[in-house]
């Protein structure tokens, strides 16, 4: 019997020697160029990082390729970032350019540092999950193909963090992203009365609904959904797989902007709805790509240096945001959930556009 509860391999055994000897004693860093960091320790030693983009969904062969590269240039040391980029760690700055050459030849984008668009945090989608309203990897690929130069260059006013989640469960930090791409359903779940009694616990299913749209039908040991109260969140389906909610002609994507996580300058913020619905249009989701690009470009053209997307909007106002992006404002933008009242403009201060 192999042991249980051993925990992950000790990270200390994975650290580059320069990191090990300067652990916790770093003095400063520089971004030498997009994707290349230099961290200098108090000792004067430096560790260099070359950051490469990744589709996150990797084959073992690809991982081995990455390992080959890391062995060749980095004495076998690398790491992954919290946004799924690959970081090659090396102590010899002379190797940087050849490392980059090899990576680029093999089609790895180099970048994601500083005022760039880094990798898109995303989820499973149609590849592995059972509740998605859209795919994850596909829209991400389509969007990043278009925004590629923003990854490899640092030409934005500030970091732009894009994330995608394929359903309202929002795996990832979608709810606090500069730009969030979120799969949504738009029709009510349809309980399968023959399956519910076996597959589902009725009280849990009833309790799972944020708006109280699910009612128990004790007689038939099933549940009934109130169409007027349901806003298609899919939570009942998560709890009770016998009431599927996917609907190919109405599922799609919504776009949210202005979230952030860091405490730098402004406090962390949630992303806010800007486009309630775009159709699922595989394989390249052109409407989604276009929408994201438009927002990035309007932001790039208008924000001040160091101003995150949400900070820029806070400064100029949402009315200005909608004017500049040309995105239509609808009643769906106006909150109607439990704390909606906090979002109403309780002031005579506003701009005309």
């Amino acid at each position, binding site marked *: 019997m192999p042991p249980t*509860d051993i925990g992950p391999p000790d990270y200390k055994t994975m650290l580059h020697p320069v*990191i090990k000897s300067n652990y916790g004693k770093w003095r400063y860093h520089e971004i030498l160029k997009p994707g290349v960091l230099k961290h200098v320790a108090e000792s004067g030693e430096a560790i260099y990082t070359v950051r490469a983009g990744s589709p*996150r969904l*990797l084959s073992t062969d690809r991982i081995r390729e990455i390992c080959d590269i890391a062995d060749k240039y980095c004495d076998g040391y690398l790491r992954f970032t919290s946004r799924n980029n690959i970081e090659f760690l090396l102590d010899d700055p002379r190797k940087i350019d050849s490392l980059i050459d090899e990576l680029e030849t093999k089609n790895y984008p180099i970048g994601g540092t500083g005022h760039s668009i880094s990798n898109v945090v995303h989820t499973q989608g149609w*590849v*592995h999950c059972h*509740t998605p309203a859209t795919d994850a990897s596909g829209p991400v690929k389509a969007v990043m193909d278009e925004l590629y130069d923003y990854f490899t260059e640092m030409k934005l006013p500030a970091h732009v963090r894009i994330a995608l989640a394929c359903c309202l469960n929002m795996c*990832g930090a979608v709810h606090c992203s500069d730009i969030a791409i979120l799969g949504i359903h738009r029709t009510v779940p349809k309980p399968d009365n023959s399956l519910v009694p076996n597959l589902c616990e009725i009280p849990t299913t009833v309790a799972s609904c944020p708006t109280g749209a699910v009612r128990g039908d004790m007689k038939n040991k099933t549940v009934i959904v109130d169409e007027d109260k349901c806003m298609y969140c899919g*939570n009942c389906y998560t709890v009770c*797989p016998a009431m599927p909610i996917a609907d190919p002609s109405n599922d799609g994507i919504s776009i949210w902007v202005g979230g952030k996580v860091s405490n730098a300058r402004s406090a962390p913020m949630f992303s806010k709805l800007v486009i309630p619905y775009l159709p699922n249009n595989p394989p390249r989701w052109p409407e989604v790509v276009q929408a994201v690009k438009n927002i990035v470009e309007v932001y790039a053209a208008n924000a001040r240096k160091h101003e995150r997307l949400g900070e820029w909007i806070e400064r100029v106002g949402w009315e200005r945001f909608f004017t500049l992006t040309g995105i239509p404002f609808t009643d769906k933008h106006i909150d109607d959930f439990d704390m909606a009242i906090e979002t109403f403009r309780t002031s005579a201060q506003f701009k005309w556009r």
Partner: protein
Amino acid sequence: MANNSETPLLDQLEEGRWPSFVKEIKQAAQKKPMAEDLLRQLELSYKEKIGHWKHGGIVGVKGYGGGVIGRYSDRPDLFPNVQAFHTLRVNHPTGWFYKTDALRTLCDIWDKHGSGLTNLHGSTGDAILLGTTTEHLQPCFDDLSNAGFDLGGSGSALRTPSACVGPGRCEWACIDSLDICNSLTLEFQDEIHRPMFPYKFKIKISACANDCVAAIARADLTVIGTWKGNIRIDQKEVAAYADSGLDIQKEVCNLCPTHCMTWNGKELKIYDEDCTRCMHCINLMPKALRQGEEKGATILIGAKAPIVEGALLSWVIVPFMKMEPPYEELKDLIIKIQDWWSENARSRERLGELIKRMSMRKFLRAVGLPPVPQMIKAPRTNPYVFFWPEEINRPEGKEEK
């Protein structure tokens, strides 16, 4: 292997400059029928605009209540090789640091037991081994364990904690995020592997307020490094930044949220008593500014995704806690919090939601934390104030029955 004519839609995603996940699946499909069927089923999803996975019976490995996500195709008739396509969540080495031999070991095990496809990494931080059959789960785990790997969390358990790179490479680490994360992961193995909470519980640790693991947005318990004492200014280096083109007034001082900095073209002054340690000025001038010398962490709680009552961000419950191994104070607090939560939460109620329902007042009393203004943006505006029984005057002689 899938040829172009079989997956015309997905093939279009092999084009373009960004690395293609379709190429990865096709690569794996060269060796693995599972990957091939995954590709074909995905093509069907692309055609029909709908997913083809369903829930099934609970699957797992011996002695563990989680770490595996069961998945079944809803068209096993068409895609028999992904009839079962379960995922293993492998706890990553803290900070996602790897030596290549470790990664190669993982690849070898996965080629032996699964689809040859992975996610490096999942959004919670696990190394995700994407897709295998029920029969392979246990042998795969056995091989993993023998190679020094363990599973991460799933279900109503403590999930795999994660941490920013911190002291591993970053000059701003106020705490040893990696060691804390690793220490908590080891301490709470049981909670990770044997779901016994009302719902999931997540811990994330960022060593400074830049929060590079998005801990404040995604963790029931969020640890963020900070400091006390004055920001240490190297005026020469400030001048160097100015010379090199940084507009200190505009880019640094004007964007300081508390406007506690002044710059006269020669000297940068910081009124540290007003500084809220947001990191902005330090971010822009890492050579010139260093955090104050007394280091520690702010503890926040409650973040989660929107289901059921809207998303929450973590909020402050301990402004400053010293962080020395073995992190007893933190661990004690975590246990107290989890105990209170386990005792009071409804099924599928996250910590933040429970406090939303029961109040901070009760939470603070239960875990023994003193109320401080740092916990709030502003005091209450509604007059619906509760008083504790001991705060009420009992008219003399009249005892409450």
